């Protein structure tokens, strides 16, 4: 799986002008087939041996070349353009344009692919597309949550160039922090995950930034409803050093400024975000390295009284050495997420801060021995978690300061991965990861008389740990196995088993995921959460352009945390007493079909699944549906190239309404009309569906052929479906004056929806 590899740089040029050609579909055929969508050039890593390279592009004749790889190689392939008449004919050849690949192992998405289909408010967002992949559910429209095969949002290891990102969303989930102009592709690994990744239960979601171009500078400017962007790649030293820079700033502040005189309800409310990415790439002989930085911030201001800010900061360095039979890599980085809430409501004023900082390092070596390959490595992570720092802003505040203890933890995880091919049909991958968890002092552990006492927990003892003292050592074994069998030339079977542990948990204070949450490790009364994941799938290549994939999965989780009903979480220094351990089960079937060649391309993804929980003291200890349980999910994307300048895109999304807790009755207590609450998640929201359209126009700049521009017109929710974001009960005071008490109240169910029909436009200029 991780054999020693040769660097093969492939560039594609026009046979007359010798200019770079974009949007080329590349298939490299050897013992295995590799599929890429390349921009100008691509760096791939191949074993030594013979390969067939198939290249195609909508405006050029397909090309087939045979090559033999014995060392690092640079290949320039010239494509011959075809006449305008031929453009109208659907191109068919043996190459497969797989720009979106779905399987039980991994789903791989390129940003070029998602730019062809409709997007919310015209913002091409690869993370949003991942939310629509088979086996993935979200909790609501516009939500930034990602629930993979019944998992929770915090159970995904989200990586940007292999450095963790703790909060992947801007503006409460409307867009992600992964700007499509900076990101090349995303890999969602659901099962059969290599042992180099660990620490989370559900999935690994990798975002890779674009490979630096060491020869030519490149600039990209874009403006849309939501944000304005600037991207550039500048070679500093030819073939050695290049710098990439990407800046994105929201336009919401400007739009709200325009709207404020017309909409008095806006008052002083404001919303803003920005991203800043930079990456310095350098290559020298057999060494490839980069140094990257990401800073992103959000700010939400409400009535000059509530001020929420949150954001990620990441620094990352990675270097890789490769020779014939050996590869060595080293990575070190820093990741931080911080959330601040500032409330200046007279005597109820306070400042609330929570943060998680992570210093991580990884070293690995990959060896190739005949048909086998082996990877060994060591993963290190030091986390400093500040769950809550809470201070009144001034003396008039009725609140007391509260500082929960800071948690410091170390995870040290050696691992190995072994890959063996039995002939050409059977492949076996086995691995073991051994996470070691330590807590680091100073720390004071409270021993409760009854750790499940909700109202008046009594601390009977304390245990103090000295500064830098290592304690609470936990060691776990994570075996992983993945078997593939090629039943026929076009049919591949796959089965895998993974066991994963997770040592940190995200405490979410509401059922709707918002950044108002904090992290805590599995300590004191809690063991690390564990998952056993089983999956089997079949991949069937129906013809040269159409793939069918079906997977079955079953997951069992233990020691996952949830809150008791009506938990008292607000500024509760004994919040641990409100948390209970539980188990979870999820199972289902995923089906996908994709066609990625020709003028008409598209994909369909369907998921049938169930996800349940059972938690002590929740729902009277009975099983209940997980928040992310959605029985049926159907996502369809279609793209049709009307002409070389115009492309029409369509997407349709359907999902069963998510579970929700609502009252099944009412009763009178004193002067209150009180809801008689149903089972936890005993109801479902209305089904969720919407249809979106997209038209892309790429005009030709005859006088400036190096300049390329794109107009992108989106219509989100074409038939104006009111999809529920929240459904909730509320007592309404007679006379339409909403109150929440009193015997004269009436009871109603309300629905909050976010988006009606939503047109948007974006313009991008590249040179």
């Amino acid at each position, binding site marked *: 799986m991780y054999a020693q590899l040769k660097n093969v740089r492939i560039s594609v040029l026009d046979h007359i002008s010798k200019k770079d050609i974009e949007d080329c579909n590349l298939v490299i055929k050897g013992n295995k087939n590799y599929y890429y969508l390349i921009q100008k050039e691509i760096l791939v890593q191949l074993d030594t041996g013979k390969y067939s390279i198939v290249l195609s592009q909508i405006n050029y004749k397909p090309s087939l070349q045979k090559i033999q790889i014995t060392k690092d190689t640079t290949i320039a392939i010239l494509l011959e353009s075809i006449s305008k008449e031929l453009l109208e004919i659907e191109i068919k050849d043996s190459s497969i344009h797989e720009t979106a690949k779905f399987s039980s192992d991994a789903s791989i998405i390129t940003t070029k692919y998602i730019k062809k289909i409709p997007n919310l408010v015209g913002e091409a967002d690869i993370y949003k597309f991942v939310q629509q992949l088979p086996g993935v559910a979200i909790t609501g429209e516009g939500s930034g949550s990602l629930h993979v095969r019944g998992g929770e949002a915090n159970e995904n290891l989200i990586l940007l160039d292999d450095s963790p990102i703790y909060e992947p969303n801007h503006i409460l989930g409307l867009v992600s922090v992964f700007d499509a102009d900076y990101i090349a592709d995303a890999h969602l690994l659901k099962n059969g995950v290599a042992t180099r990744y660990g620490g989370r239960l559900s999935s690994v979601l990798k975002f890779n930034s674009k490979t630096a171009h060491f020869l030519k500078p490149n600039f990209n400017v874009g403006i849309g409803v939501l944000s304005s962007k600037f991207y550039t790649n500048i070679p500093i030293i030819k073939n050695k050093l290049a710098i990439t820079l990407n800046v994105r700033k929201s336009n919401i502040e400007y739009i709200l400024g325009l709207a404020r005189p017309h909409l008095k309800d806006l008052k002083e409310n404001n919303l803003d975000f920005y991203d800043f990415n930079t990456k310095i790439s350098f290559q020298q002989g057999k060494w490839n390295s980069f140094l990257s930085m990401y800073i992103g911030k959000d700010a939400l201001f409400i*009535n000059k009284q509530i001020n929420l800010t949150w954001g990620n900061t990441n620094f990352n360095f990675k270097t890789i050495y490769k020779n014939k039979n050996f590869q060595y890599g080293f990575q070190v980085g820093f990741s931080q997420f911080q959330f601040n809430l500032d409330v200046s409501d007279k005597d109820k004023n306070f400042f609330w801060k929570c943060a998680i900082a992570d210093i991580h390092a990884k070293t690995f070596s990959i060896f190739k021995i005949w048909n086998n390959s082996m990877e060994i490595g060591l993963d290190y992570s030091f986390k400093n978690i500040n769950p809550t720092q809470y201070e009144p802003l001034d003396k008039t505040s009725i609140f007391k300061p509260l500082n929960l203890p800071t948690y410091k933890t170390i995870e040290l995880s050696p691992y190995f991965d072994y890959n063996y091919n039995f002939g050409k049909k059977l492949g076996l991958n086995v691995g073991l990861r051994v996470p070691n968890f330590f807590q680091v002092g100073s720390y004071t552990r409270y021993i409760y008389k009854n750790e499940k006492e909700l109202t008046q927990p009594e601390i009977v003892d304390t245990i103090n740990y000295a500064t830098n003292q290592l304690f609470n050592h936990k060691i776990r074994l994570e075996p992983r196995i993945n078997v593939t069998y090629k039943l026929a030339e076009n049919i591949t079977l796959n089965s895998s088993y993974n066991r994963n542990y997770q040592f940190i948990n995200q405490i979410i204070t509401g*059922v709707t995921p918002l950044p108002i949450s904090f992290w805590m490790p599995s300590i004191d009364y809690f063991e690390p959460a564990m998952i056993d994941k089983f999956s089997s799938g079949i991949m069937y290549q129906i013809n040269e352009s159409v793939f069918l994939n079906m997977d079955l999965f079953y997951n069992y989780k233990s020691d996952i945390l949830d809150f008791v009903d*009506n938990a008292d979480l607000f500024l509760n220094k004994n919040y641990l007493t409100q948390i209970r351990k539980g188990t979870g089960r999820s199972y289902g079937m995923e089906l996908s079909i994709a066609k990625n060649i020709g003028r008409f391309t598209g994909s369909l993804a369907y998921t049938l699944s169930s996800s349940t929980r059972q938690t002590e003291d929740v729902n009277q200890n009975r099983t209940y549906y997980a928040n992310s349980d959605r029985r049926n999910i159907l996502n369809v994307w279609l793209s049709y190239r009307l002409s070389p300048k115009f492309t029409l895109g369509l997407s349709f999304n359907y999902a069963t309404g998510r579970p929700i807790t609502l009252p099944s009755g009412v009763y*009178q*207590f004193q002067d209150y009309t009180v809801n008689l609450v149903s089972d936890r998640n005993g109801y479902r929201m209305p089904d969720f569906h919407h249809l979106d359209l997209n038209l892309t126009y790429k005009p030709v700049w005859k006088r400036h052929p190096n300049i390329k521009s794109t107009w992108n017109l989106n219509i989100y929710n074409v038939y104006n479906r009111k999809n529920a974001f929240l459904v909730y009960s509320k007592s309404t005071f007679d006379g339409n004056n909403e*109150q929440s008490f009193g015997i004269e109240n009436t009871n109603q169910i*309300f629905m909050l929806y976010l988006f009606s029909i939503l047109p948007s436009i974006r313009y991008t200029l590249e040179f």
Partner: protein
Amino acid sequence: MKKIILLLFIFQISCVENISQQTLQQSVKRVVIDAVFSDLVDFNRVIITQSTQFDTQNKIEKVENGLVIIKNTTQNISDTLLHTKDGIYKSNKTNFVPKSNQIYELIVEVNGQKYTSKTKCPAKVGFELIDLRSKFKEIARPFANYAQFNFSENRYIYSGDSLFEVEANGRINRSENNYLRGEVYRFDDKYKNPNIFLIFDTQRVVNEVNNINPPGAFLRNDEVSIYIFGITPESYKFYQTLRQLTNYEGGLFSPSQGNPISNLDNGALGLFDVCLIKKFKIFVK
């Protein structure tokens, strides 16, 4: 041009509408017992009702044929309460006054089903009201000032319609424009000493009801009576949950809702509360 941009780009977001309730499942009727015994006899009563569907058309059903017995198990005395009206049961014995640290038991029989509960009467809340003044002159926002708060045993008080009763000029201060709102405080934990208790005048509540969370609303020169109930931790948790439920707005920021934990057995809803009450009178200036 700006208007065109605005029309093109402005988001149509965050809309709310009420939806059909027909999809809600029908719940089984459950007995609700609201029992309070205190040293202020006027407050003593047991109200028995039944839950109903989540539907504005269904009225709360009063239970008028129940058997209600209150026992002081420490002193081994008991009393059978009599139905007065609308499911309200009261004792004829004026000397059946709770005392701190004594155990009380409630026995209720409705339609052949028996519901019981035991609880201990906590000590009386010990603090004095000494001042009432306007804190923010610019908005004429009066507030009460408490001092000498004694947290020796009773850390739990509840300020709300009943357990923090307030009267203005002899009437319970509760109407469409002049109302109270329940608050639960555990003063030694999250909050400073309760040296302020916010009281909002009617005008402020009407003007700013969307932005504030007022515990009460009064007219100037009102004579205000405040009753502070000392309650058990179980009662505190019950009222706290009750407040979460009645203020629940869909879970955007709230944890999942559940029914308050009753101290009554056999599936009854409600609470059996035995407590001592401290009463104050003040004037709103």
